[in-house]
C-alpha cells in the first residue's frame, strides 16, 4: 500500500496523473522523511487514506479531490519552494501541512501572499498569534500544554518544580512558554536543565534536579528519544516525585520506548486519540476518534499517533469548509473555514472565529497518566 501511494504521489508530482475526474486540487507539504519524520510520516499516510476514502464516497459535492503531497524533509527552505510550486504550478486551492513550526512559517508566508487557505499541523503559538487571514492550525499550542500541566500541578498542591528540556525547536519553544506562564499558576521553576537530541544518558542533569532543595515535581518538554531516556533515568535514580511529560510524546510508542515500569505514573496532556478505548459513552469525540483509529490501524498495520490525528482534523476542516463554500475558490474556502463551528475532530472540537484560528480550548486537552503500561484519564 505504501509503495503504491509513493508511486502514485511520484506520478502526481510528475504531472502524469491528472485524472479527468479530479476537480479540486489539495496541496500538502509534510516532513515525511528527515528528523521530523515521525510527525510527517503518519500525517502523509492519514491524508492518503482520507482522500481515497472521500473519493470512494463520491468526493465533495460530486467533485473528486486530488492530493498533491511533497516531502520537505523538515527543511524550511524546501517547504517554501514546495508551497510556491503548489500554488503556481499545481494550482491547488488549499494547503495542509508544515509538520514542524519551522516549515509552517515558510509555508504560511506563501499562503498569505497568494491568498490560499492553509491549515498547519505544528504546535507553536506564533502560527496563529497574531491571527493571519489565511492561516489556521489544528494542534494545541505549546503554551496550552504548559497551562494544562500547571493546572494539574496546582490541583495537586505542587508549587516548586524542576525542568529538563530538549534543546530542539519543540523543547526550547515549550520551555520558554512554560517559564512565561508558570507564574500565573503559582508555580516556581527552581532549576532548569537541558539535553540535546541524541544524548544517551540524562542522569547528571536529573541528579542535579534531584539534589535541588524543595523540588516537588519535574517537567520535561521535548520529543523523540530524549523524553524516553529521561523517563528511564528517572526510574534508575529512584526519584520519587511526579514526572510530567509534554504532548510531544503522546503515543503508545513512548511507553514501549521508556519501558512499562519506568513509565508508570508519568503524566502528560494528550488528545482523546490515546484513550479511545476507555472513553466514556456519550463523549462527543468518541465516534470520530474510534473511526479514525480503526481505519488507520487497518490500513497501515501500525498504531495511530496524535500527529496523524492533527492531519485528520486538518483534512476534515478543509473538506467541511469546501463543502459549505460550494465552490473551489480559495477565498470562499477561507471564509467557510473561518465560519467552522463545532466540528468534532480527534484533537478536540473546533470553532473558528475571525480572531481565533485555532478554535480549541483547554477542555480538549486530557490530562493522562500511564498506569500498568496503559493510558488513563485523570481529569
Amino acid at each position, binding site marked *: 500500500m505504501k509503495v503504491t501511494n509513493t508511486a502514485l504521489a511520484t506520478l502526481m508530482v510528475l504531472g502524469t496523473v491528472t485524472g479527468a475526474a479530479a476537480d479540486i486540487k489539495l496541496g500538502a507539504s509534510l516532513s515525511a522523511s528527515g528528523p521530523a*519524520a515521525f510527525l510527517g510520516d503518519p500525517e502523509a499516510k492519514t491524508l492518503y487514506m482520507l482522500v481515497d476514502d472521500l473519493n470512494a464516497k463520491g468526493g465533495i459535492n460530486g467533485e473528486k479531490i486530488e492530493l498533491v503531497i511533497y516531502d520537505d524533509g523538515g527543511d524550511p527552505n524546501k517547504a517554501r519552494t514546495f508551497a510556491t510550486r503548489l500554488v503556481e504550478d499545481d494550482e491547488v486551492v488549499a494547503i495542509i501541512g508544515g509538520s514542524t513550526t519551522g516549515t509552517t512559517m515558510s509555508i504560511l508566508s506563501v499562503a498569505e501572499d497568494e491568498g490560499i487557505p492553509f491549515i498547519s499541523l505544528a504546535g507553536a503559538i506564533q502560527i496563529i498569534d497574531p491571527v493571519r487571514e489565511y492561516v489556521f492550525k489544528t494542534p494545541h499550542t505549546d503554551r496550552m500544554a504548559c497551562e494544562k500541566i500547571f493546572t494539574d500541578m496546582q490541583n495537586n498542591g505542587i508549587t516548586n518544580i524542576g525542568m529538563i528540556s530538549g534543546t530542539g525547536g519543540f523543547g526550547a519553544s515549550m520551555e520558554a512558554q512554560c517559564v512565561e506562564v508558570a507564574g500565573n499558576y503559582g508555580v516556581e521553576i527552581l532549576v532548569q536543565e537541558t539535553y540535546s537530541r541524541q544524548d544517551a544518558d540524562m*542522569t547528571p542533569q536529573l*541528579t542535579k534536579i534531584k539534589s535541588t532543595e524543595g523540588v516537588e515535581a519535574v517537567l520535561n518538554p521535548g520529543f523523540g528519544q530524549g523524553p524516553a*531516556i529521561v523517563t528511564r533515568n528517572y526510574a534508575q535514580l529512584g526519584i520519587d516525585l511526579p514526572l510530567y511529560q509534554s504532548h510531544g510524546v503522546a503515543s503508545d510508542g513512548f511507553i514501549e520506548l521508556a519501558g512499562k*515500569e*519506568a513509565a508508570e505514573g508519568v503524566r502528560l496532556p494528550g488528545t482523546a486519540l490515546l484513550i479511545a478505548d476507555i472513553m466514556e459513552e456519550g463523549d462527543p469525540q468518541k465516534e470520530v476518534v474510534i473511526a479514525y483509529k480503526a481505519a488507520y490501524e487497518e490500513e497501515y498495520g501500525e498504531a495511530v499517533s496524535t500527529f496523524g490525528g492533527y492531519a485528520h482534523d486538518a483534512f476534515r476542516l478543509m473538506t467541511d469548509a469546501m463543502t459549505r463554500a460550494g465552490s473551489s475558490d480559495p477565498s470562499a474556502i477561507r471564509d467557510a473555514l473561518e465560519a467552522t463551528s463545532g466540528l468534532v475532530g480527534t484533537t478536540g472540537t473546533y470553532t473558528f472565529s475571525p480572531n481565533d484560528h485555532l478554535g480549541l480550548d483547554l477542555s480538549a486537552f486530557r490530562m493522562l497518566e500511564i498506569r500498568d503500561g496503559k493510558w488513563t484519564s485523570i481529569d
Partner: protein
Amino acid sequence: MDALMQFVFSGLTVGAVYALVALGFTIIYNASDVVNFAQGEFVMLGGMITVFAFDAGLPLPLAAILAIVATAAIGVALNKFAIEPARGAPVVSLIIITIGASILIRGATQVLFDKQLHRLPAFSGDDPIHLLGATLLPQSLWVIGGAIAIFIALWLFFTRTLLGKAVLATANNRLAAQLVGINTGFVMTLSFALSAAIGALAGVLVTPITLVSYDVGVGLALKGFAAAMLGGMGNPKGALVGGLLLGLFEALTAGYISSQYKEAVAFVVILAVLFVMPQGLFGQKTTERV
C-alpha cells in the same frame, strides 16, 4: 560524593558508546588511512537489524548474530563497490565516498525498515545496581565491558598476529606490503568486514540504552570521530581512552557547570588537546608514511 559517582557512571556509559564507535574507525583507518564516516551507519544497522529480527521472533542472540553478519557483508560491499573502484584516488575523495555511502545506507534503511524509534530489552534486566551511593544500569556494564573486550581483541590482533601486522603494513605502504607478499586487497576487505562487524556489535550493545532509529548514525559517527581524534587516530588504546574521556567531560560539565555547555566544553577540551598534541593522546608516529 554521591553526585560525583553518578556523573562518573553516566560519563563512562556514554563514553563507552563513543569508544565503541571510535574502535570501529581504527581498523579501516589503519588499513587505508581513510576515516570511514559510514561507521555510525554500521552501528545503526546493527541496532535496526537486531530489532527487526527480534520482533520477527528470532531469539535475541541469534538476531544479534544475524545483524552483525549482515552488517559485515554491507561493509564488504562498501569496499568492493565504492572504495576499491576508486583505488588511487586521494584519501579525501575516499572519505567523501564514505560520506555518500552513509547517506545511501540511511536512506535505504528508512525505506526498508521504518522511521520510528526502537529499543531492545536490556540483556540483564532494568533493575539499577546501587554502587557507592549512585546507580548504574546493568546494560551500562555490558557496554563498558564490550568496549574493553573489543579493545583487548583489537590490540592483540594488531600486535600479536601476522594478519594484524599485515593490516598495519598495508596502511604504511601499500606497494611495499604487496612486494613482501601481502594480499592487500584481502586486507582491505577484511578491515571493512571487521570494522562493520564491530560497529554492528556496538549497535546491539547500546540500543537498549540509547534507542535506535535510521538517523542515529550521524551523531554517533561525529562523537566517535571526536573520541578517536582525542585519543589518536588509528590506535585502539586511543579510541578507548578518548571515548571514555569524552563521555566523562560531557557528564561532569552537565553535572557541575551546566548542561547547556555540555557539548561545547567537550569540544573545547578536544581542540585544546589537539593544539598541544596534534597526534592525539596516544598518536603514533609509526603510521606516518616514509
